[in-house]
């Protein structure tokens, strides 16, 4: 079965990104299921801020997603409208808004909700994490 994950919950105020990570790992480990991609919406986009500094003695959820994306080629997409309003800015958006720098962390990309609609059309199941 082909899955996509839809994460809404803030990485700081909820465990949505953590639960989704363990769900993603389970899909990847299974033989009969595949993960198409992960779409972050609402406050979940805060996970893509490269300026986040996780205290050294705490679990770094951003790094965990980046590693998963690198190791298994999983696309991590942040909703561009949700991200930009929260200060998660890619190089191209930084130029467009004439800002001094970009804040998007590596392995994450900004795309419109249309990308999520194509996940809905392509996948057997969308699982939400709130």
């Amino acid at each position, binding site marked *: 079965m082909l899955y996509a994950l839809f994460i*809404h919950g803030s990485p700081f105020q909820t465990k949505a990104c953590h639960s989704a990570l363990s769900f993603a790992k389970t899909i990847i480990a299974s033989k009969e299921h595949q993960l198409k991609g992960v779409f972050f919406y*609402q406050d979940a986009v805060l996970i893509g801020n490269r300026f986040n500094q996780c205290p050294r003695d705490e679990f770094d959820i951003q790094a965990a997603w980046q590693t998963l994306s690198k190791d298994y080629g999983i696309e991590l997409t942040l909703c561009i409208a949700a991200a930009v309003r929260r200060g998660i800015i890619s190089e191209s958006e930084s130029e467009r808004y004439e800002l001094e720098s970009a804040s998007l962390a590596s392995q994450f990309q900004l795309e419109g909700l249309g990308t999520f*609609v194509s996940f*809905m059309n392509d996948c057997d199941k969308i699982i939400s994490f709130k």
Partner: protein
Amino acid sequence: MGKTLIHITSSPYTGLAVKEALDLAMVLATFEQDVDLAFSGAGIALLHQNQSPDESQGKALYKMLASFEFYDIDNLYLPESQIPKEGIEITSLASSLSELEWKDMLTRYQHTFRF
């Protein structure tokens, strides 16, 4: 592809959840997906008539409801049991469902997203 339900349970004025739920509904509709909206709990506040939020309280999201017909979003549901009792009118754009109809409605969708 099956129908999608956006179920709004958050208040329109406590955060961005409702704004971002309506944005999702409109994008889905723009991509010609079949979308219905359901409201319960604090989410019903979006259906109240005669709201006048000021700028600091957020955009007047209830005004978006009237534009939904242009996106072919025609079905807005709320449970009959949660209609406010006195002094508050609910927009005529929404239809109230009996408990049985509400439960039946919730089972009709391939995707349900709750905000």
